């Protein structure tokens, strides 16, 4: 892995880890994990027409989000069932059109195929996510806390939800390039779990998860000469969580 690729992994990790707080707090962890699979046909299409898989993934994720939003508005289906349906449909569609040798790469990612263009993309995504969190912090908190309460402050929940989904789609599309469709879900679940072990306020939670994203990806970059980056990252994230859990509980008992 060269220096740029290492930088891309770290920037993408920080973006995803920070954003994932709101996913977990809204109890969308598994929904987000399933949703990331919607990118597969987009990745297949991008590979077939040889354009960047980031854009293929992003287009399909946004189309998927719009589709889910429209059906959810018209029916009383559970969100998780709808996402499950769209996820399975996309997986089947993607598998039919993708070549077998490309399938493994799209499922587990390939950091070594990233270029300096991706570095610009990673920087842009990080700035967009941090900027949006800064600008819409109150909106995100209120929508997470209570949609009824958000209405008091003339907050348009559809608009805020759409901005949120757009950011999630951006971050997932970037993450897919690095750790792949199957493993990108680890970012949506594990960093906030670690953060919530220690954070007593939302600001601290965002700081802790950001630092956790940085540290775990940095260590995984160092280990990537010996092991494949994506799976290593998930294992490092998990080990940090267990250590944090042990530390917290030992500390409490002393």
């Amino acid at each position: 892995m060269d220096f740029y690729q290492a930088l891309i992994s770290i920037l993408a990790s920080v973006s995803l880890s920070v954003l994932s707080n709101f996913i977990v707090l809204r109890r969308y962890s598994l929904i987000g994990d399933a949703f990331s699979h919607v990118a597969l046909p987009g990745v297949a299409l991008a590979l077939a027409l040889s354009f960047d898989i980031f854009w293929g993934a992003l287009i399909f994720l946004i189309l998927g989000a719009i589709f889910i939003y429209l059906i959810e508005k018209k029916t009383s289906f559970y969100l998780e069932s709808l996402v499950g349906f769209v996820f399975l449909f996309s997986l089947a569609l993607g598998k039919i059109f993708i070549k077998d040798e490309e399938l493994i790469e799209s499922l587990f990612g390939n950091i070594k195929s990233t270029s300096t263009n991706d570095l610009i993309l990673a920087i842009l995504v990080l700035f967009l996510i941090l900027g949006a969190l800064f600008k819409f912090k109150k909106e995100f908190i209120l929508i997470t806390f209570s949609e009824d309460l958000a209405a008091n402050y003339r907050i348009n929940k559809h608009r805020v939800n759409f901005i949120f989904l757009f950011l999630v789609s951006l971050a997932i599309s970037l993450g897919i390039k690095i750790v792949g469709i199957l493993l990108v879900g680890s970012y949506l679940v594990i960093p906030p779990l670690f953060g919530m072990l220690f954070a007593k306020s939302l600001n601290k939670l965002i700081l802790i998860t950001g630092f956790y994203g940085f540290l775990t990806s940095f260590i995984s970059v160092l280990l990537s000469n010996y092991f494949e980056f994506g799976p290593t990252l998930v294992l490092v994230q998990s080990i940090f969580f267990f250590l944090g859990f042990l530390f917290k509980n030992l500390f409490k008992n002393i």
Partner: protein
Amino acid sequence: MLLKVTNLKVKFESKTILENINFEIKENEKVGILGPNGGGKTTLLRALTFQIPYEGEIIYKEGTKVSLVPQIKNINRFLPITVGEFFSLFKIKLTYLKDFLKEDIFKKQIANLSDGELQKILILQAIFQKPDLLLLDEPTSFLDPINKENIFSLLEKFYQEKPFAVLIVSHDLSIISSFVERVICLNKNLICDGFLNQITPDIFEKLYGYKVGIYKHKH
């Protein structure tokens, strides 16, 4: 007139939840909304705060500020913020709140609050927005008798200081009767609208679909 609702109708898919709803709220009026589960009480509050699509007319007097206190069961309490942070989100200065809350509560996590504390905090948050109309959705459902009393004395105290109109949803006439002057009964349609002494057992039978006795306590 603060609020005028004309021919309000709310549908969800093909199911009609509210129909032919007509009522008015005057300034500084205290009104209760009674009705069975699924009768459309919460839906009415969501329509009045323009959260859901509706047919008919909801017209406020110009410049009316509305504050809704949602049911605490619809609140996501896992948010890792302290009570102090929560109030500062709404730019409410903590010094204003010291008369109503114990000081140690500001450092407490929302997740660690009792139902009574959370309800009180939501009401304070709404009242400090200085609303012309305060909408309360079952503010006492999960509370013990002492906390129920506390909530109403808090509301009464603020009302005495600077009156505002209140629309309070409840299942329990006896609880709101000490506070409200007028009652609206809701079960898909408007079953009644009148002063407390005009609510008869017949109206209750129509509202809940079975005979309900009204017992008057002698004090």
